[in-house]
Every structure is written in structure tokens, then in C-alpha cells.
């Protein structure tokens, strides 16, 4: 992968001359429809009890139908525009670019309603749930961002919402518990296992089994049994397709040299990469060093899908620990496992310290308070610019997946 292909200005200009070249690569076979079995390379699939198979099949059929229905698509687009604040802008980070010697563009998912990209997926799934005649949304949440987004969509469409959240997380993220309840959702603390996100996922799946006729499971990332990894990527691909068009207007070469996003389950990254996978752009996914399924994991089956999983040599799943609750998931979406094994996307990590530095730097140089999750992507960019891994003058598009208001009290303690 060559990050410095094509002429780059010696002094980075925040905005390049608009151009037409998009540097398409030949390979359009990646990030497409994973078929009836939901396979991405060898990864993905549908590892759920027989009891859930009809629900997964019904969901897949309903989604395929909705996806092909112009009225569903236009309602989705319309709702994202008039309610969720789309399109989100791409902001040239002028002062930070100057400091790093690169040309950094930020895709501003922090400006979407509820403060992160999670709303893109949730609006799509909630509209689908209503179309399927379901009365209730079930969701798992870690930090609470997906839970808040689901509670929001439930309020918008008049659907009941129950959110499963690890007991440890309900204590760490009391503000988001309150927000969900304020929005009319019921938050159920999960007390099994490590009492964090992975246990909340297991519990949501268990509850789905027993309420499968009335309830719709609104999964929060590109994970779970087929069709979730595909469907969630499709709903999030609005990030990548908007950014692709915006880059075409901002960059002389039309596409950035490098595209970067943080990876927890991998939904903002998958949505971003989908817009650039057929270009020559180098693509980088950044995980939390303490929860890096792509870097430290091995192939395994968790929560209904086959992918890279943090586990011991006996097959017991390990817990992820990082500064950002939203990246503390021991697995990663199966499409990332496939993109990583084919080499199309590089996966790397950022440490808690690097993340804190990135948050402060972005706040002071651009006036943007990033979510700790999103700051992982920036932390890598900062290290790579300093080390020369990112050549001087490279154009870099980073998805800023969410805003950091939710992290303010945690930061107060960490930066004191």
C-alpha cells in the first residue's frame, strides 16, 4: 500500500483543487451482498439456536424487500435529512493539518442527531421494524450511545424500547441511562458474566428468543448473525457515500490517500470504507489497544457470527478493557476479519494515553471535542504523521464517529 502515490503539495493546503479523477481499482467484488449464508470470505454466517433461525430469515427477507423498495429508501433518506441532520459535513482540520504536516479532513458524524453515527443504523432498523409490524425494539448497549440512539428512534416512531446494559456499564454511564429513560426506554441492567457489553449482547439475544414474534432486535454494530453485519454496514454506508462525494469536491485527486476510522464492532468504519473500497485509498481501522480483536484475536464464534475474537487458548472469551466503553467489545464484525485477511484494510491500535493526547489536541486546534472512541482514529493519525508512516502532504479522511460530551466527566477525572 502506498500512501504517497500521486503528486502532493510540499506545503499542505487544507483544501485542494477540485478534480475529477477517482482512481478506481478493478476490484468491485468486496463489500457487496454476502449472499444467503452471510459469508464475508470465510467469516460471518449465522451461529444461532434453531429457535432464532426463522426470525433471522424473516428479517433478511424483510430487509431485502425494503432495500429494493424506493418508498422505503426515500423515507429513510428523508428521515436522515430532516430528523438526523444529514448530510453531515466534511471539515478540513486546518490548524491540526498544519501541525501534523498532512491534509486532514474530518467526516463529522459528531454532528448527527444524538451525537454519533449510531443514529444512521438505528433509523434504518426502526423503520424496518415498523414495516415488519413489530411493536418493540430490543437493543444492547455498552457506553450507552446505541441505547440512546435506539431510545430516540423508538420515541420518533412510537415503538417500545428495552435496552440491555451490563451492570458495570450502567454505573459507569449513569448519564446515558438517564437519557434513555428520559426518552421513554426501559433500561435492564445485566448481571451475568463480566456485566459489560458482551454480556448485554448475550442477554439481548436470549430475550429476543423469547419475544421473537413481537420484538425486533436492533443490533448496534456490524456483528451478530446474518443479515445484521451486512444490513448495518448498508445503513452506515451513508457515511462513506456522502464522504466520497464531498472528497470529490474538495480534493484534487478526488479521493483521499488514506481513509481512517475507529473500530469497536466496526460499524462506522464499515460504513466509511464502503465508500472507498473501490478506490486506491489506503484504508486503516484503529482498535483500542486493550480490545483489539483484529490484532490480538483469533478466529472464533461469538454472538452468532464467526470472526476474530479475543479469547484464551481454551475458547473462553476475554474481556476488552480500554478508556472508551464503546470499543470494549471482544469481537469485531466479520467483514472486517475478511478485509483484514485479504489485506485490503490495515488494522492497528491506539493506546489510552495516545487517545487522551488526541482528544486534547483536536479540542485545542479545531474546537472539536471528539468521543474517546473516535479519538482512537486520530491518535493513530498523529503517530503515523510523526513517524512518517503518513507521508508529508498526504490527504487523510477520518471519520469522527461521535462527540465527546458524554465523556466529559470521565475526562475531568483522567486529565486532572
Amino acid at each position: 500500500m502506498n500512501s504517497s502515490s500521486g503528486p502532493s503539495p510540499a506545503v499542505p493546503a487544507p483544501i485542494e483543487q477540485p478534480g475529477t479523477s477517482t482512481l478506481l481499482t478493478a476490484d468491485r467484488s468486496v463489500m457487496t451482498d454476502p449472499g444467503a449464508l452471510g459469508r464475508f470470505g470465510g467469516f460471518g454466517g449465522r451461529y444461532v439456536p434453531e429457535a432464532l433461525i426463522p426470525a433471522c430469515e424473516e428479517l433478511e427477507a424483510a430487509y431485502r424487500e425494503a432495500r429494493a423498495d424506493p418508498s422505503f429508501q426515500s423515507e429513510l433518506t428523508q428521515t436522515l435529512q430532516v430528523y438526523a441532520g444529514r448530510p453531515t459535513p466534511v471539515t478540513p482540520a486546518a490548524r491540526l493539518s498544519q501541525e501534523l504536516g498532512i491534509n486532514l479532513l474530518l467526516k463529522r458524524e459528531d454532528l448527527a442527531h444524538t451525537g454519533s453515527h449510531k443514529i444512521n443504523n438505528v433509523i434504518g432498523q426502526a423503520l424496518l421494524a415498523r414495516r415488519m409490524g413489530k411493536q418493540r425494539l430490543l437493543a444492547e448497549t455498552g457506553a450507552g450511545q446505541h441505547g440512546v440512539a435506539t431510545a430516540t428512534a423508538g420515541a420518533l416512531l412510537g415503538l417500545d424500547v428495552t435496552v440491555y446494559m451490563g451492570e458495570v456499564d450502567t454505573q459507569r454511564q449513569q448519564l446515558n441511562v438517564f437519557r434513555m429513560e428520559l426518552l421513554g426506554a426501559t433500561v435492564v441492567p445485566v448481571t451475568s458474566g463480566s456485566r459489560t457489553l458482551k454480556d448485554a449482547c448475550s442477554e439481548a439475544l436470549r430475550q429476543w428468543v423469547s419475544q421473537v414474534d413481537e420484538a425486533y432486535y436492533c443490533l448496534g454494530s456490524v456483528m451478530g448473525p446474518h443479515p445484521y453485519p451486512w444490513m448495518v454496514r448498508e445503513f452506515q454506508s451513508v457515511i462513506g457515500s456522502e464522504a466520497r462525494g464531498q472528497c470529490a469536491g474538495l480534493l484534487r485527486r478526488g479521493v483521499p490517500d488514506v481513509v481512517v476510522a475507529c473500530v469497536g464492532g466496526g460499524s462506522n468504519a464499515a460504513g466509511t470504507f464502503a465508500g472507498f473500497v473501490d478506490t486506491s485509498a489506503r484504508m486503516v481501522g484503529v482498535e483500542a489497544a486493550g480490545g483489539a480483536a483484529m490484532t490480538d484475536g483469533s478466529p472464533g464464534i461469538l454472538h452468532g457470527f464467526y470472526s476474530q475474537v479475543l479469547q484464551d487458548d481454551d475458547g473462553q472469551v476475554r474481556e476488552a478493557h480500554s478508556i472508551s466503553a464503546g470499543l470494549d467489545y471482544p469481537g469485531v464484525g466479520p467483514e472486517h476479519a475478511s478485509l483484514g485477511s485479504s489485506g485490503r484494510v490495515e488494522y492497528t491500535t491506539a493506546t489510552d494515553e495516545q487517545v487522551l493526547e488526541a482528544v486534547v489536541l483536536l479540542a485545542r486546534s479545531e474546537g472539536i471535542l471528539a468521543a474517546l472512541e473516535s479519538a482512537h482514529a486520530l491518535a493513530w493519525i498523529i503517530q503515523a504523521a510523526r513517524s512518517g508512516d503518513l507521508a508529508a502532504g498526504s490527504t487523510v479522511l477520518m471519520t469522527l464517529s461521535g462527540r465527546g460530551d458524554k465523556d466529559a466527566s470521565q475526562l475531568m477525572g483522567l486529565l486532572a
Partner: protein
Amino acid sequence: MTSPVLSAPGAVQQSLLRRRAAGGKSLVPFVTAGITPDWTAYVRACAEHGADAIEIGLPFSDPMLDGPVIQAASGQALARGARIADLLEEIGASGPGAAPGSTGVPLIVMTYSNIVRRHGDEAFCHALAAAGIGGLIVPDTPLDEIEPLLAASRAAGLELILLVAPSTKPHRVSRIAELSSGFVYAVSNMGVTGVRDAVSDTVQRTVDGVRQHTSLPVLVGFGISSPAQAVEVSRHADGVVVASALMRDVLAGASPADLAATVSSFRTALDGTDWSAAR
């Protein structure tokens, strides 16, 4: 090709068929491996007090299909440092009367897909066979993903027991019945394992649906909590799997002798019922 189809019925199926031929109903108790240091004593207690086969749960950190009791039982085993290889060794350890594998009652392992995949489908199945295990249940590997496991279990001579849920569509039921060996496991309700007050009325429909496609024994599990419930579902089925009701007691401190008494009470209730009017 290394996967010969089982020609003769395996030990699990034979044991259940023997019970059926004698006009009785099968009892398959469940024990979480490693739940206590002397967990194999619970297995022996089951073997000696009327079990037709015994299900041994190999613990997994994220048991998606289990309710609070089996979750806690698995968690307790893992907190004790249970390792799969050690548990299998304890099952297979020789010594007259000491090893559950030597009691003559066929053993079935129940575990999750990741445990199998992590050890390798073939290596795992061979390790089970070497430990004297006769059957295998992997509840989160559905029909669509069953192929590798089916080949590996056949190659190792294990009976791979498949599950049917109340929601399973007829075309899948027929395929599951065709591919299952040992017995067909009919899930009593749409839910997870656990102790329940009442048996769901979907049981009969599920069991009858399976019977249309196979002469294999059909056993019902998930939520069978009392001897009376065991009798009730056995009016339709060939017997029951009892898990949470037993592990709840063990978690609360029941001794192997206590468990033996509970298993006996299920056995007595099943044996004391006149089944000639059933089915």
C-alpha cells in the same frame, strides 16, 4: 472421504431405544463439568440412580442459550479454573467405579460452537471419543452451519444430536431429523434453559412434528423442573433432559447424595406412570 455414515446405532441411541422397548421413558440429567471439585461424583450419582444417558455441559464464558442457573453453573466452573482438556481427562480417568466414563451409562457433551471451533472440529470430536463420550450437542450451530461438525463427529464415531425448536419450519424439521443421531432434542419452548413453573403447550406440537420424520427417540428439554412436568411431557416424548433444576440445587450446596435423591424422584415418577395410553 473420511466420514463414514454411522451404520449401527451408537450407545446413546441404543440406551434410549432399550428404555422405549421396555415401555419406559428416558431420563437424561445434566451436570455442568467442573461446577465443584468433586463434580464427577454428581455424574456417577446420576448414573447410579436411573439415568439413561447423562449430558455433561462443558462451560463456556458466553452461554447465549442458557438462563441464569446454567450461566451461574458455567461461571462457577470457569472461576474455579476449569479447562476443557482437564475436564475430559476427569471424565475418562480410569479406575474401577471412579470414572463416570466407566459407569456404562452413555455420556453426551453439550457445549458452544466456539469451544469446538477453538480446539478444531476434528481434534475436539476425537478428544471426546477418547474420553469415552458417546454424543455431542452444540446448540448454537444450526443446520446451515452443521456440515463441518457433522463430518468431524461421524469420523470420530460420535452421535451428533440436533435440536428442533417450536419455531422450526417443517422443511427444516425433516432435514434435522434426517441428520440427527442418538435422538432428536425437542426444545420445550421459545426461550432459554431455566426452571419453569409450567410446561409450554407447544411441546406436543413440536414432538409430533419431529415424529413425522423419524423413528429416533425424541426427548424434550429446557425448563423441565419437576417429576410431574417430566411425566407430563413424556406423554408425548420418549423422555426428558433435566438440567437447571439439578444445577440449581448443586449451586445451593446439594451433595452428590442429595442429587441422587432428586434424580431418583424423576426416575420413580417416570417408572410409576402407566404409558400404555400415551402416544
